[in-house]
């Protein structure tokens, strides 16, 4: 006859096995899904990525030629968005984490940021169209698109930066103060370097969203195929280009090529940003 303890052991062992099987199955399923998407797009897209595809502007609505102007447009819009959202977002995060106690103002900021994070991007696009394009008369332009995307990624940057700042051990702040540092010196010499990794992760995430965004930019930057000549030029980002090519059945070949290119660029941005941060951290270690 089995003792109750032995019985419990066999059941918990069985549970353990089931749990492991479920967890592995979930992980493998997700991995397989992601890999099949990536493989599908690269398989269909890579053959079209040639030197001409990268360097020529689109002709015949994108049926022929390359995507060079959309690459430039994508980069410019992303740079504008990050250049505006990063300082504002990090500044807000430091304000929330270091310069104020929990009060009604911080609650409003946090509530607004969280609400903004959940809004569909088409709503940002509509707002950007009404406010930047029409009211401020910036027209369909890289500037309007970049400003709209800046608003869209701001909540992400604020939240990831604030979390990174709060994760810095209190002792670093204490040591810094005990050495006679001011608050500003403490934040920039003791807190910021340690929070850097998290802030950069949030930034990479935001860059990815900018590069991949369609709805918000199509309404604010337009869909011009010309090579942009200034920040007030209208432009078409790669994601918008892909959308139009596929949606209007212009060229599935070039649509796949563009999609593969977007993936590769986001991948490269990740690698480059991580390398820079690792080098910076290695230097300071």
């Amino acid at each position, binding site marked *: 006859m089995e003792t109750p303890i032995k019985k419990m052991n066999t059941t918990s062992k069985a549970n353990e096995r089931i749990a492991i099987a479920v967890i592995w199955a979930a992980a493998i399923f997700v991995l397989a899904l992601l890999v099949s998407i990536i493989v599908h797009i690269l398989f269909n897209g890579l053959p079209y990525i040639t030197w001409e595809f990268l360097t020529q502007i689109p002709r015949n609505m994108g049926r022929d030629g390359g995507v060079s102007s959309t690459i430039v447009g994508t980069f410019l819009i992303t740079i504008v968005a990050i250049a505006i959202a990063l300082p504002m977002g990090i500044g807000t995060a430091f304000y929330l984490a270091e310069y104020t106690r929990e009060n009604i103002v911080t609650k409003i900021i946090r509530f607004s940021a969280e609400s903004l994070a959940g809004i569909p991007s088409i709503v940002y696009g509509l707002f950007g169209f009404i406010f930047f394009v029409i009211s401020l008369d910036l027209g369909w332009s890289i500037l309007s698109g970049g400003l709209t995307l800046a608003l869209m990624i701001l909540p992400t940057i604020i939240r990831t930066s604030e979390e990174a700042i709060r994760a810095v051990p209190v002792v670093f702040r204490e040591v810094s103060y005990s050495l006679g540092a001011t608050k500003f010196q403490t934040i920039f010499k003791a807190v910021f370097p340690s929070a850097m990794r998290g802030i950069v992760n949030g930034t990479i995430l935001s860059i990815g969203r900018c590069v991949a965004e369609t709805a918000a930019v199509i309404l604010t930057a337009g869909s011009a195929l010309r090579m942009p000549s200034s920040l007030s030029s209208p432009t078409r980002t790669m994601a918008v280009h892909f959308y139009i090519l596929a949606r209007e059945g212009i060229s599935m070949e070039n649509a796949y090529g563009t999609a593969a290119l977007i993936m590769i660029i986001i991948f490269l941005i990740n690698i480059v940003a991580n390398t820079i941060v690792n080098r910076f951290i290695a230097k300071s*270690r």
Partner: protein
Amino acid sequence: MSNDSIQTATEIKLKMNKVDLHYGAFKALSNVSMDIQRNSITAFIGPSGCGKSSLLRIFNRMNDLIPIARVDGEVFLDDLSIYDKSTDVTYLRTKIGMVFQKPNVFPTSIYDNLVIGPKKHGIKHKIDLDDIVERCLDQVALWGETKDILQKPAQSLTPGDQQRLCIARALAIEPDVILMDESCSALDPVSTAKVEELMMELQEKYTIIIVTHNMEQALRVSDYCAFMMINPERAGELVEYSLTVDMFSNPTDQRTEDYITGRFG
């Protein structure tokens, strides 16, 4: 409270007069008065939660970092009223250095850990900074081991050496007073012995206050000893403050005797 032996001593470096510490409505320290002698080692002992660390942090105003903390009473560094509105707290903290419980080096090189303080106070030239690094490492007897690896990560040192580096970092801002908040409690016995030896050497130039749970340590290194306990209102108070030899051989208060003979705490 036996203060007689202290009154006769030479020179007062730090002075507390009827100090209360509140965290919000909670009274953490009640009516503490004490004089700390120049170039002495003073140990704060007492059971956990009696307010030793809070008392220590009153001297360099680290309690300022806690928004609800409030200090009443008078605290002096020489003639400087520490809690006066006109007192520059960053200047104060350059005069009163602090070493913490864990060896909390910054995740940078040994060299950068040492110059972070001096740089904040406007010392820019590499020659001056190199001098400071050598002087401070020499003072904590680390120069020989580290002079060739100054650019290595500080975190690659052993915990004991890291703690000595933290002491060197505190010395780099040329303080008069060094506060050590249980600075040996995370160290092994050999490293502890080295740090204790160092304290006694530093005593020539600095006034040192340590918080310790280790009564043998208090007995080994300190000249004066302050025994603290929680009073019936849950606030920490100074029970007895005297020469260490007197306290351990002939405590005047029954509570002190109970604590140091290990009857509670």
